Protein backbone atom coordinates (compact mmCIF):
# COMPACT_ATOMS: atom_id res chain seq x y z
CA UNK A 1 0.00 0.00 0.00
CA UNK A 2 1.76 3.13 -1.21
CA UNK A 3 0.50 6.48 0.03
CA UNK A 4 0.57 9.45 -2.36
CA UNK A 5 2.79 12.46 -1.70
CA UNK A 6 0.05 14.56 -0.18
CA UNK A 7 -0.91 11.81 2.25
CA UNK A 8 2.74 11.31 3.16
CA UNK A 9 3.12 15.04 3.87
CA UNK A 10 0.05 14.97 6.11
CA UNK A 11 1.32 11.93 7.98
CA UNK A 12 4.71 13.59 8.47
CA UNK A 13 3.05 16.69 9.90
CA UNK A 14 1.19 14.60 12.49
CA UNK A 15 4.35 12.66 13.39
CA UNK A 16 6.18 15.97 13.93
CA UNK A 17 3.37 17.10 16.26
CA UNK A 18 3.66 13.82 18.13
CA UNK A 19 7.43 14.26 18.49
CA UNK A 20 7.28 17.68 20.13
CA UNK A 21 4.36 16.63 22.32
CA UNK A 22 6.08 13.43 23.45
CA UNK A 23 9.32 15.21 24.30
CA UNK A 24 7.41 17.98 26.04
CA UNK A 25 5.31 15.44 27.93
CA UNK A 26 8.29 13.93 29.72
CA UNK A 27 10.54 17.01 29.50
CA UNK A 28 13.32 14.92 27.99
CA UNK A 29 14.29 13.22 24.75
CA UNK A 30 15.68 14.20 21.37
CA UNK A 31 13.47 16.38 19.15
CA UNK A 32 16.12 17.71 16.73
CA UNK A 33 17.15 14.56 14.90
CA UNK A 34 13.63 13.16 15.16
CA UNK A 35 12.12 16.14 13.31
CA UNK A 36 14.89 16.05 10.70
CA UNK A 37 14.27 12.37 9.92
CA UNK A 38 10.45 12.47 9.92
CA UNK A 39 10.12 12.58 6.14
CA UNK A 40 12.42 9.57 5.81
CA UNK A 41 10.47 7.50 8.36
CA UNK A 42 7.15 8.45 6.78
CA UNK A 43 8.27 7.50 3.28
CA UNK A 44 9.82 4.26 4.52
CA UNK A 45 6.82 2.97 6.47
CA UNK A 46 3.98 4.36 4.34
CA UNK A 47 5.38 3.95 0.84
CA UNK A 48 8.71 2.17 0.42
CA UNK A 49 8.87 -0.85 2.75
CA UNK A 50 6.87 -4.03 2.51
CA UNK A 51 6.08 -4.69 6.17
CA UNK A 52 3.39 -6.14 8.41
CA UNK A 53 2.29 -4.32 11.57
CA UNK A 54 1.16 -7.70 12.93
CA UNK A 55 4.70 -7.82 14.19
CA UNK A 56 6.83 -10.94 13.80
CA UNK A 57 10.43 -10.78 15.01
CA UNK A 58 11.90 -12.94 12.24
CA UNK A 59 10.21 -10.91 9.48
CA UNK A 60 10.41 -13.67 6.88
CA UNK A 61 9.33 -12.20 3.54
CA UNK A 62 9.19 -8.68 4.99
CA UNK A 63 11.49 -5.70 4.69
CA UNK A 64 13.20 -4.80 7.97
CA UNK A 65 14.29 -1.44 9.35
CA UNK A 66 16.89 -0.91 12.09
CA UNK A 67 17.34 2.41 13.87
CA UNK A 68 21.00 2.61 14.88
CA UNK A 69 20.92 6.15 16.29
CA UNK A 70 18.38 5.11 18.88
CA UNK A 71 18.07 8.51 20.53
CA UNK A 72 15.68 9.66 17.80
CA UNK A 73 13.17 7.19 19.25
CA UNK A 74 10.23 9.69 19.20
CA UNK A 75 10.00 9.67 15.40
CA UNK A 76 10.34 5.86 15.37
CA UNK A 77 7.60 5.34 17.97
CA UNK A 78 5.16 7.76 16.36
CA UNK A 79 5.75 6.21 12.93
CA UNK A 80 5.19 2.68 14.26
CA UNK A 81 2.00 3.75 16.06
CA UNK A 82 0.53 5.41 12.96
CA UNK A 83 1.55 2.38 10.87
CA UNK A 84 -0.54 0.21 13.20
CA UNK A 85 2.09 -1.57 15.31
CA UNK A 86 0.50 -0.37 18.55
CA UNK A 87 -2.12 2.08 19.77
CA UNK A 88 -1.07 5.70 19.40
CA UNK A 89 -2.43 6.42 22.91
CA UNK A 90 0.67 4.64 24.18
CA UNK A 91 2.83 7.50 22.83
CA UNK A 92 1.81 9.41 25.98
CA UNK A 93 3.89 6.97 28.07
CA UNK A 94 7.17 7.85 26.31
CA UNK A 95 10.11 7.80 28.76
CA UNK A 96 7.82 7.29 31.75
CA UNK A 97 7.98 4.53 34.36
CA UNK A 98 6.63 1.11 33.26
CA UNK A 99 6.43 2.16 29.62
CA UNK A 100 7.28 0.03 26.59
CA UNK A 101 8.46 3.28 24.98
CA UNK A 102 11.85 3.49 26.65
CA UNK A 103 14.12 6.49 26.15
CA UNK A 104 16.00 4.45 23.59
CA UNK A 105 14.30 1.64 21.64
CA UNK A 106 14.53 -1.87 23.06
CA UNK A 107 13.16 -5.34 22.48
CA UNK A 108 13.24 -5.83 26.24
CA UNK A 109 9.71 -4.49 26.77
CA UNK A 110 8.39 -6.29 23.68
CA UNK A 111 7.20 -3.21 21.84
CA UNK A 112 5.99 -4.35 18.40
CA UNK A 113 8.18 -3.01 15.60
CA UNK A 114 11.46 -3.00 17.51
CA UNK A 115 13.93 -5.77 16.64
CA UNK A 116 17.09 -4.65 18.44
CA UNK A 117 18.06 -2.33 21.26
CA UNK A 118 19.96 0.78 20.17
CA UNK A 119 21.25 3.85 21.94
CA UNK A 120 24.89 3.03 22.46
CA UNK A 121 25.97 4.20 19.02
CA UNK A 122 27.68 2.43 16.16
CA UNK A 123 26.15 -1.04 16.51
CA UNK A 124 23.20 -0.98 14.13
CA UNK A 125 25.06 -1.34 10.85
CA UNK A 126 26.54 -4.65 11.99
CA UNK A 127 23.11 -5.83 13.13
CA UNK A 128 21.54 -4.82 9.81
CA UNK A 129 24.26 -6.72 7.94
CA UNK A 130 23.56 -9.79 10.08
CA UNK A 131 19.85 -9.63 9.31
CA UNK A 132 20.66 -9.20 5.61
CA UNK A 133 22.91 -12.28 5.70
CA UNK A 134 20.13 -14.27 7.40
CA UNK A 135 17.73 -13.22 4.63
CA UNK A 136 20.16 -14.47 2.01
CA UNK A 137 20.58 -17.80 3.82
CA UNK A 138 16.79 -18.10 4.02
CA UNK A 139 16.37 -17.36 0.31
CA UNK A 140 14.30 -14.34 1.35
CA UNK A 141 14.39 -11.63 -1.33
CA UNK A 142 13.13 -8.81 0.88
CA UNK A 143 15.37 -5.97 2.02
CA UNK A 144 17.03 -4.57 5.12
CA UNK A 145 17.14 -0.83 5.83
CA UNK A 146 19.10 1.00 8.50
CA UNK A 147 19.50 4.59 9.68
CA UNK A 148 22.54 6.17 11.31
CA UNK A 149 23.42 9.61 12.60
CA UNK A 150 26.32 11.43 11.00
CA UNK A 151 27.90 11.94 14.41
CA UNK A 152 27.42 8.22 14.99
CA UNK A 153 29.80 7.26 12.22
CA UNK A 154 32.64 8.55 14.38
CA UNK A 155 32.31 5.17 16.13
CA UNK A 156 34.91 2.64 14.95
CA UNK A 157 32.50 -0.28 14.65
CA UNK A 158 30.76 1.50 11.77
CA UNK A 159 33.94 1.21 9.73
CA UNK A 160 34.37 -2.46 10.57
CA UNK A 161 30.90 -2.97 9.16
CA UNK A 162 31.62 -0.63 6.23
CA UNK A 163 34.53 -2.87 5.22
CA UNK A 164 32.60 -6.11 5.71
CA UNK A 165 29.46 -5.47 3.64
CA UNK A 166 31.02 -4.84 0.21
CA UNK A 167 33.55 -7.67 0.67
CA UNK A 168 30.66 -10.04 1.29
CA UNK A 169 28.37 -8.57 -1.39
CA UNK A 170 25.62 -7.67 1.08
CA UNK A 171 23.51 -6.16 -1.69
CA UNK A 172 20.13 -6.51 0.03
CA UNK A 173 20.98 -3.70 2.44
CA UNK A 174 20.04 -0.01 2.08
CA UNK A 175 21.65 2.08 4.79
CA UNK A 176 21.13 5.79 5.31
CA UNK A 177 23.14 8.41 7.16
CA UNK A 178 21.30 11.44 8.47
CA UNK A 179 23.72 14.15 7.39
CA UNK A 180 22.60 17.12 9.46
CA UNK A 181 26.08 18.25 10.40
CA UNK A 182 25.23 18.51 14.11
CA UNK A 183 26.14 16.56 17.19
CA UNK A 184 25.80 17.18 20.93
CA UNK A 185 28.87 19.34 21.39
CA UNK A 186 28.38 21.34 18.20
CA UNK A 187 28.70 21.11 14.40
CA UNK A 188 30.43 17.90 13.25
CA UNK A 189 32.94 20.11 11.43
CA UNK A 190 34.11 21.43 14.79
CA UNK A 191 33.80 18.28 16.90
CA UNK A 192 35.34 15.74 14.52
CA UNK A 193 35.19 16.32 10.78
CA UNK A 194 33.53 13.58 8.76
CA UNK A 195 35.36 14.59 5.59
CA UNK A 196 34.12 13.63 2.15
CA UNK A 197 31.42 11.11 3.01
CA UNK A 198 30.70 10.08 -0.56
CA UNK A 199 34.38 9.47 -1.28
CA UNK A 200 34.78 7.50 1.95
CA UNK A 201 31.84 5.15 1.38
CA UNK A 202 32.67 4.71 -2.30
CA UNK A 203 36.25 3.88 -1.38
CA UNK A 204 34.92 1.16 0.93
CA UNK A 205 32.93 -0.24 -1.99
CA UNK A 206 29.39 1.03 -1.37
CA UNK A 207 26.96 2.30 -4.00
CA UNK A 208 26.32 5.86 -2.74
CA UNK A 209 23.24 8.02 -3.36
CA UNK A 210 22.40 11.55 -2.19
CA UNK A 211 18.98 12.51 -0.90
CA UNK A 212 17.27 15.77 0.04
CA UNK A 213 15.95 14.41 3.31
CA UNK A 214 13.38 17.13 3.95
CA UNK A 215 11.85 16.99 0.47
CA UNK A 216 9.29 14.18 0.53
CA UNK A 217 9.27 13.72 -3.24
CA UNK A 218 13.03 13.34 -3.28
CA UNK A 219 13.00 10.99 -0.27
CA UNK A 220 10.57 8.64 -2.02
CA UNK A 221 12.40 8.93 -5.33
CA UNK A 222 15.84 8.15 -3.88
CA UNK A 223 14.58 5.27 -1.72
CA UNK A 224 12.93 3.73 -4.82
CA UNK A 225 16.13 4.32 -6.78
CA UNK A 226 18.06 2.57 -3.99
CA UNK A 227 15.68 -0.41 -4.13
CA UNK A 228 16.23 -0.69 -7.87
CA UNK A 229 19.98 -0.92 -7.27
CA UNK A 230 19.81 -3.84 -4.83
CA UNK A 231 20.92 -7.29 -5.92
CA UNK A 232 23.84 -5.95 -7.91
CA UNK A 233 26.67 -6.97 -5.63
CA UNK A 234 27.05 -3.79 -3.57
CA UNK A 235 25.48 -2.49 -0.37
CA UNK A 236 23.81 0.88 -0.79
CA UNK A 237 24.47 4.00 1.28
CA UNK A 238 22.19 7.01 1.10
CA UNK A 239 23.62 10.31 2.28
CA UNK A 240 20.45 11.98 3.51
CA UNK A 241 20.91 15.73 3.82
CA UNK A 242 18.55 17.09 6.46
CA UNK A 243 18.20 19.95 8.85
CA UNK A 244 18.05 19.07 12.51
CA UNK A 245 14.74 20.29 13.92
CA UNK A 246 13.07 20.62 10.48
CA UNK A 247 9.47 21.80 10.67
CA UNK A 248 9.82 24.00 13.73
CA UNK A 249 11.44 27.31 12.85
CA UNK A 250 13.19 27.97 16.14
CA UNK A 251 14.64 24.46 16.27
CA UNK A 252 15.98 24.27 12.70
CA UNK A 253 19.64 23.79 12.05
CA UNK A 254 20.97 24.00 15.59
CA UNK A 255 22.61 21.31 17.70
CA UNK A 256 21.03 23.02 20.73
CA UNK A 257 17.80 21.08 20.08
CA UNK A 258 19.57 17.72 19.85
CA UNK A 259 18.44 16.61 23.29
CA UNK A 260 16.38 19.40 24.86
CA UNK A 261 12.63 19.46 25.48
CA UNK A 262 10.47 22.50 24.67
CA UNK A 263 8.74 24.31 27.53
CA UNK A 264 4.98 25.06 27.49
CA UNK A 265 5.39 28.28 25.52
CA UNK A 266 7.75 26.70 23.00
CA UNK A 267 5.39 23.75 22.59
CA UNK A 268 2.58 26.13 21.68
CA UNK A 269 4.79 27.92 19.14
CA UNK A 270 5.90 24.62 17.62
CA UNK A 271 2.43 23.12 17.35
CA UNK A 272 1.17 26.28 15.63
CA UNK A 273 3.57 25.44 12.80
CA UNK A 274 2.55 21.78 12.48
CA UNK A 275 -0.92 20.93 11.19
CA UNK A 276 -2.91 18.32 13.12
CA UNK A 277 -3.85 15.94 10.32
CA UNK A 278 -4.56 12.53 11.87
CA UNK A 279 -5.60 13.55 15.37
CA UNK A 280 -3.31 14.02 18.35
CA UNK A 281 -2.82 11.00 20.62
Amino acid at each position, binding site marked *: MKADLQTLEKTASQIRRDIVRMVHGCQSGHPGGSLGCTDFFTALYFSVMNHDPKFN*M*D*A*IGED*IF*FLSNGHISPVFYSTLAHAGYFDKAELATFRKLNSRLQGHP*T*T*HEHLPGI*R*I*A*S*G*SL*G*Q*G*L*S*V*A*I*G*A*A*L*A*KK*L*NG*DKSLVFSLHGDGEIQE*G*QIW*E*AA*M*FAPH*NHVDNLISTIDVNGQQIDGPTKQVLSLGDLRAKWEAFGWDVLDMKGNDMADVVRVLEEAKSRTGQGKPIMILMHTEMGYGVDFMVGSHKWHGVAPNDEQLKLALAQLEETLGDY
Partner: protein
Amino acid sequence: MKKYTYTDKKDTRSGFGAGLLEAGRKNDQVVALCADLIGSLKMQDFIKEFPERFVQVGIAEANMIGIAAGMTIGGKIPFTGTFANFSTGRVYDQIRQSVAYSNKNVKICASHAGLTLGEDGATHQILEDIGLMKMLPGMTVINPCDYNQTKAATMAIAEYEGPVYLRFGRPVVPIFTDPDQKFEIGKAWMVNEGADVSIFATGHLVWEAILAGEKLAEEGIDAEIINIHTIKPLDAEAILKSVAKTGCVVTAEEHNRLGGLGDSVAQVLAANNPTPQEYVAVNDSFGESGTPEQLMTKYGLDADHIVAAAKKAIERKNKKA
Protein backbone atom coordinates in the same frame (compact mmCIF):
# COMPACT_ATOMS: atom_id res chain seq x y z
CA MET B 1 37.86 -41.49 46.41
CA LYS B 2 36.28 -42.57 43.15
CA LYS B 3 38.95 -43.51 40.63
CA TYR B 4 39.25 -41.36 37.52
CA THR B 5 41.58 -42.45 34.74
CA TYR B 6 42.19 -41.27 31.23
CA THR B 7 43.67 -42.78 28.12
CA ASP B 8 43.67 -39.67 25.99
CA LYS B 9 44.32 -35.95 26.35
CA LYS B 10 42.92 -33.21 24.14
CA ASP B 11 42.26 -29.48 24.26
CA THR B 12 38.78 -28.34 25.24
CA ARG B 13 38.67 -26.09 22.15
CA SER B 14 38.73 -29.25 20.04
CA GLY B 15 35.67 -30.40 21.97
CA PHE B 16 34.04 -27.16 20.90
CA GLY B 17 34.97 -27.78 17.26
CA ALA B 18 33.54 -31.30 17.38
CA GLY B 19 30.39 -30.12 19.15
CA LEU B 20 29.87 -27.30 16.66
CA LEU B 21 30.01 -29.77 13.78
CA GLU B 22 27.46 -32.04 15.47
CA ALA B 23 25.20 -29.11 16.33
CA GLY B 24 25.43 -27.99 12.70
CA ARG B 25 24.44 -31.43 11.49
CA LYS B 26 21.47 -31.59 13.85
CA ASN B 27 20.10 -28.14 13.10
CA ASP B 28 20.57 -26.29 9.82
CA GLN B 29 19.88 -22.96 11.54
CA VAL B 30 23.25 -23.17 13.31
CA VAL B 31 25.77 -20.74 11.77
CA ALA B 32 29.33 -19.91 12.80
CA LEU B 33 31.28 -16.66 12.76
CA CYS B 34 34.98 -16.17 13.36
CA ALA B 35 37.34 -13.20 13.66
CA ASP B 36 40.43 -14.53 11.89
CA LEU B 37 41.08 -17.44 14.28
CA ILE B 38 39.57 -20.47 12.52
CA GLY B 39 42.43 -22.79 13.42
CA SER B 40 42.62 -21.68 17.04
CA LEU B 41 38.87 -22.19 17.49
CA LYS B 42 38.91 -25.56 15.66
CA MET B 43 36.16 -24.49 13.29
CA GLN B 44 37.64 -26.13 10.17
CA ASP B 45 35.39 -29.20 10.16
CA PHE B 46 32.22 -27.11 10.42
CA ILE B 47 33.42 -24.82 7.63
CA LYS B 48 34.32 -27.75 5.39
CA GLU B 49 30.88 -29.31 5.76
CA PHE B 50 28.83 -26.09 5.84
CA PRO B 51 30.80 -23.40 3.96
CA GLU B 52 27.69 -21.32 3.26
CA ARG B 53 26.84 -21.24 6.97
CA PHE B 54 30.17 -19.75 8.00
CA VAL B 55 30.98 -16.02 8.17
CA GLN B 56 34.58 -14.84 8.27
CA VAL B 57 34.48 -11.31 9.71
CA GLY B 58 38.19 -10.57 9.87
CA ILE B 59 39.80 -8.87 12.84
CA ALA B 60 36.65 -6.99 13.81
CA GLU B 61 35.11 -8.53 16.90
CA ALA B 62 32.59 -5.75 17.56
CA ASN B 63 31.22 -6.20 14.06
CA MET B 64 31.10 -9.96 14.61
CA ILE B 65 28.91 -9.63 17.70
CA GLY B 66 26.57 -7.21 15.92
CA ILE B 67 26.28 -9.43 12.85
CA ALA B 68 25.56 -12.43 15.06
CA ALA B 69 22.79 -10.50 16.84
CA GLY B 70 21.31 -9.52 13.46
CA MET B 71 21.43 -13.09 12.14
CA THR B 72 19.14 -14.28 14.92
CA ILE B 73 16.45 -12.18 13.25
CA GLY B 74 15.38 -14.70 10.64
CA GLY B 75 15.96 -17.63 12.96
CA LYS B 76 19.67 -18.34 12.77
CA ILE B 77 21.58 -19.66 15.80
CA PRO B 78 24.98 -17.94 15.57
CA PHE B 79 28.11 -19.26 17.30
CA THR B 80 30.85 -16.61 17.43
CA GLY B 81 34.42 -17.70 17.93
CA THR B 82 37.53 -15.87 19.05
CA PHE B 83 39.84 -15.74 22.08
CA ALA B 84 38.14 -15.15 25.44
CA ASN B 85 39.71 -11.72 25.80
CA PHE B 86 38.36 -10.54 22.44
CA SER B 87 35.04 -12.31 23.06
CA THR B 88 34.26 -10.33 26.21
CA GLY B 89 36.31 -7.33 27.33
CA ARG B 90 36.84 -6.01 23.84
CA VAL B 91 33.16 -6.20 22.92
CA TYR B 92 31.42 -5.77 26.24
CA ASP B 93 29.09 -3.00 25.15
CA GLN B 94 28.15 -4.80 21.93
CA ILE B 95 27.26 -7.92 23.94
CA ARG B 96 25.44 -5.86 26.53
CA GLN B 97 23.19 -3.93 24.14
CA SER B 98 22.86 -6.01 20.97
CA VAL B 99 22.86 -9.47 22.59
CA ALA B 100 21.96 -9.48 26.30
CA TYR B 101 19.58 -6.52 26.54
CA SER B 102 18.12 -7.42 23.15
CA ASN B 103 17.81 -11.06 24.31
CA LYS B 104 19.30 -12.50 21.14
CA ASN B 105 20.02 -16.19 20.73
CA VAL B 106 23.78 -15.74 20.26
CA LYS B 107 26.37 -18.24 21.52
CA ILE B 108 29.60 -16.45 22.39
CA CYS B 109 32.27 -19.14 22.28
CA ALA B 110 35.63 -18.24 23.72
CA SER B 111 38.87 -20.14 23.55
CA HIS B 112 42.25 -19.47 25.19
CA ALA B 113 40.60 -18.40 28.44
CA GLY B 114 42.72 -17.92 31.56
CA LEU B 115 46.42 -18.42 32.21
CA THR B 116 46.76 -21.69 30.31
CA LEU B 117 47.08 -20.08 26.91
CA GLY B 118 50.63 -19.72 28.14
CA GLU B 119 53.42 -17.98 26.33
CA ASP B 120 51.38 -15.17 24.71
CA GLY B 121 51.21 -13.50 28.11
CA ALA B 122 48.80 -11.25 29.94
CA THR B 123 47.45 -9.29 26.93
CA HIS B 124 45.68 -12.49 25.91
CA GLN B 125 45.16 -14.20 29.29
CA ILE B 126 41.84 -12.84 30.39
CA LEU B 127 40.98 -13.66 34.00
CA GLU B 128 37.94 -11.40 34.28
CA ASP B 129 35.63 -12.83 31.62
CA ILE B 130 33.41 -14.96 33.88
CA GLY B 131 32.71 -11.91 36.02
CA LEU B 132 32.00 -9.68 33.04
CA MET B 133 29.61 -12.15 31.48
CA LYS B 134 27.79 -13.30 34.61
CA MET B 135 26.88 -9.71 35.49
CA LEU B 136 24.81 -9.37 32.33
CA PRO B 137 21.13 -10.09 33.03
CA GLY B 138 19.91 -13.14 31.12
CA MET B 139 23.39 -14.39 30.19
CA THR B 140 24.18 -18.07 30.75
CA VAL B 141 27.86 -18.73 31.61
CA ILE B 142 29.43 -22.16 31.06
CA ASN B 143 33.03 -23.31 31.65
CA PRO B 144 33.38 -27.05 30.85
CA CYS B 145 36.26 -29.17 32.11
CA ASP B 146 37.43 -31.50 29.32
CA TYR B 147 37.04 -32.38 25.66
CA ASN B 148 33.93 -34.51 26.10
CA GLN B 149 32.15 -32.06 28.36
CA THR B 150 32.93 -29.14 26.06
CA LYS B 151 31.58 -31.06 23.08
CA ALA B 152 28.40 -31.94 24.98
CA ALA B 153 28.00 -28.37 26.23
CA THR B 154 28.38 -26.98 22.71
CA MET B 155 25.60 -29.24 21.47
CA ALA B 156 23.41 -28.39 24.46
CA ILE B 157 23.61 -24.63 24.02
CA ALA B 158 22.50 -24.97 20.39
CA GLU B 159 19.23 -26.35 21.72
CA TYR B 160 18.87 -23.72 24.45
CA GLU B 161 17.10 -20.46 23.50
CA GLY B 162 18.96 -17.39 24.78
CA PRO B 163 22.41 -15.79 25.00
CA VAL B 164 25.25 -17.98 26.25
CA TYR B 165 28.91 -17.45 27.07
CA LEU B 166 30.88 -20.70 26.58
CA ARG B 167 34.46 -20.59 27.87
CA PHE B 168 37.16 -23.11 27.04
CA GLY B 169 40.91 -23.30 26.60
CA ARG B 170 44.03 -24.03 24.65
CA PRO B 171 46.05 -26.65 26.55
CA VAL B 172 45.83 -30.40 26.10
CA VAL B 173 44.23 -31.86 29.25
CA PRO B 174 43.02 -35.33 30.34
CA ILE B 175 39.69 -36.56 29.02
CA PHE B 176 37.92 -38.07 32.01
CA THR B 177 34.20 -37.44 31.51
CA ASP B 178 31.75 -39.69 29.68
CA PRO B 179 31.87 -39.33 25.87
CA ASP B 180 28.10 -39.88 25.68
CA GLN B 181 27.15 -37.56 28.55
CA LYS B 182 24.02 -35.49 28.40
CA PHE B 183 24.99 -31.95 29.32
CA GLU B 184 22.43 -30.24 31.52
CA ILE B 185 22.83 -26.47 31.68
CA GLY B 186 22.76 -25.31 35.30
CA LYS B 187 23.05 -28.78 36.81
CA ALA B 188 26.24 -29.45 38.76
CA TRP B 189 28.02 -32.79 38.27
CA MET B 190 28.94 -34.86 41.33
CA VAL B 191 32.50 -35.98 40.68
CA ASN B 192 33.11 -37.60 44.08
CA GLU B 193 30.95 -37.85 47.17
CA GLY B 194 32.74 -37.01 50.41
CA ALA B 195 32.15 -35.79 53.94
CA ASP B 196 34.99 -33.53 55.08
CA VAL B 197 35.20 -30.64 52.60
CA SER B 198 33.36 -29.54 49.45
CA ILE B 199 35.54 -28.68 46.48
CA PHE B 200 33.59 -26.77 43.84
CA ALA B 201 35.66 -26.60 40.68
CA THR B 202 35.15 -25.35 37.14
CA GLY B 203 37.02 -25.68 33.84
CA HIS B 204 40.58 -26.94 33.87
CA LEU B 205 40.58 -26.92 37.68
CA VAL B 206 38.24 -29.94 37.86
CA TRP B 207 41.05 -32.34 36.94
CA GLU B 208 43.31 -30.61 39.43
CA ALA B 209 40.57 -31.06 42.04
CA ILE B 210 40.48 -34.79 41.31
CA LEU B 211 44.26 -35.01 41.75
CA ALA B 212 43.88 -33.02 44.97
CA GLY B 213 41.12 -35.37 46.15
CA GLU B 214 43.44 -38.36 45.68
CA LYS B 215 46.20 -36.68 47.68
CA LEU B 216 43.75 -35.72 50.43
CA ALA B 217 42.44 -39.31 50.54
CA GLU B 218 45.97 -40.54 51.18
CA GLU B 219 45.95 -38.34 54.28
CA GLY B 220 42.56 -39.62 55.36
CA ILE B 221 40.57 -36.58 54.23
CA ASP B 222 37.34 -37.40 52.41
CA ALA B 223 36.71 -34.62 49.89
CA GLU B 224 33.47 -34.08 48.03
CA ILE B 225 34.23 -32.80 44.54
CA ILE B 226 31.56 -31.11 42.46
CA ASN B 227 31.99 -29.79 38.95
CA ILE B 228 30.22 -26.46 38.59
CA HIS B 229 30.36 -26.24 34.79
CA THR B 230 27.55 -23.69 34.71
CA ILE B 231 28.43 -20.60 36.72
CA LYS B 232 25.17 -18.93 35.79
CA PRO B 233 22.54 -20.07 36.46
CA LEU B 234 24.31 -21.51 39.51
CA ASP B 235 23.17 -24.84 40.96
CA ALA B 236 22.60 -23.42 44.46
CA GLU B 237 20.74 -26.53 45.54
CA ALA B 238 23.74 -28.79 44.88
CA ILE B 239 26.05 -26.35 46.67
CA LEU B 240 23.87 -26.05 49.77
CA LYS B 241 23.25 -29.79 49.93
CA SER B 242 26.97 -30.49 49.81
CA VAL B 243 27.84 -27.82 52.37
CA ALA B 244 25.21 -29.08 54.78
CA LYS B 245 27.17 -32.31 54.82
CA THR B 246 30.79 -31.05 54.80
CA GLY B 247 30.63 -27.67 56.54
CA CYS B 248 33.49 -26.09 54.60
CA VAL B 249 34.31 -25.14 51.05
CA VAL B 250 37.08 -24.71 48.49
CA THR B 251 36.28 -23.07 45.17
CA ALA B 252 38.72 -23.60 42.30
CA GLU B 253 38.82 -21.70 39.03
CA GLU B 254 41.19 -20.31 36.42
CA HIS B 255 39.97 -16.76 36.95
CA ASN B 256 40.49 -13.71 39.11
CA ARG B 257 39.26 -14.35 42.65
CA LEU B 258 37.13 -11.22 42.19
CA GLY B 259 33.96 -11.88 40.28
CA GLY B 260 34.33 -15.56 39.41
CA LEU B 261 32.89 -18.87 40.60
CA GLY B 262 34.15 -18.30 44.14
CA ASP B 263 32.15 -15.12 44.54
CA SER B 264 29.03 -16.74 43.12
CA VAL B 265 29.34 -19.58 45.62
CA ALA B 266 30.10 -17.16 48.47
CA GLN B 267 26.94 -15.22 47.72
CA VAL B 268 24.81 -18.36 47.96
CA LEU B 269 26.50 -19.35 51.22
CA ALA B 270 26.29 -15.88 52.79
CA ALA B 271 22.55 -15.74 52.17
CA ASN B 272 21.73 -19.32 53.19
CA ASN B 273 24.41 -21.00 55.23
CA PRO B 274 27.55 -18.95 56.08
CA THR B 275 30.44 -21.38 55.74
CA PRO B 276 34.26 -21.15 55.84
CA GLN B 277 35.43 -20.87 52.22
CA GLU B 278 38.89 -20.82 50.64
CA TYR B 279 39.50 -19.51 47.15
CA VAL B 280 41.82 -21.19 44.67
CA ALA B 281 41.96 -18.45 42.04
CA VAL B 282 44.28 -15.77 40.71
CA ASN B 283 44.86 -13.18 43.39
CA ASP B 284 43.71 -10.03 41.58
CA SER B 285 46.66 -9.83 39.21
CA PHE B 286 47.50 -10.13 35.52
CA GLY B 287 49.26 -13.22 34.21
CA GLU B 288 52.54 -13.44 32.31
CA SER B 289 54.38 -15.55 29.74
CA GLY B 290 55.30 -19.14 30.64
CA THR B 291 54.17 -22.69 30.04
CA PRO B 292 50.67 -23.52 31.26
CA GLU B 293 52.07 -25.82 33.97
CA GLN B 294 54.52 -23.18 35.22
CA LEU B 295 51.78 -20.57 35.34
CA MET B 296 49.28 -22.81 37.15
CA THR B 297 51.91 -23.45 39.82
CA LYS B 298 53.15 -19.89 40.13
CA TYR B 299 49.64 -18.43 40.36
CA GLY B 300 48.45 -21.07 42.82
CA LEU B 301 45.99 -23.00 40.69
CA ASP B 302 47.31 -26.58 40.81
CA ALA B 303 46.35 -29.67 42.83
CA ASP B 304 48.81 -28.87 45.63
CA HIS B 305 47.21 -25.48 46.19
CA ILE B 306 43.77 -27.11 46.29
CA VAL B 307 45.06 -29.57 48.89
CA ALA B 308 46.41 -26.71 51.02
CA ALA B 309 43.17 -24.76 50.67
CA ALA B 310 41.12 -27.81 51.68
CA LYS B 311 43.16 -28.32 54.83
CA LYS B 312 42.80 -24.66 55.71
CA ALA B 313 39.04 -24.75 55.17
CA ILE B 314 38.74 -27.83 57.40
CA GLU B 315 40.86 -26.15 60.07
CA ARG B 316 38.61 -23.09 60.04
CA LYS B 317 35.53 -25.31 60.27
CA ASN B 318 36.98 -27.15 63.28
CA LYS B 319 37.95 -23.92 64.99
CA LYS B 320 34.42 -22.63 64.50
CA ALA B 321 33.00 -25.81 66.03
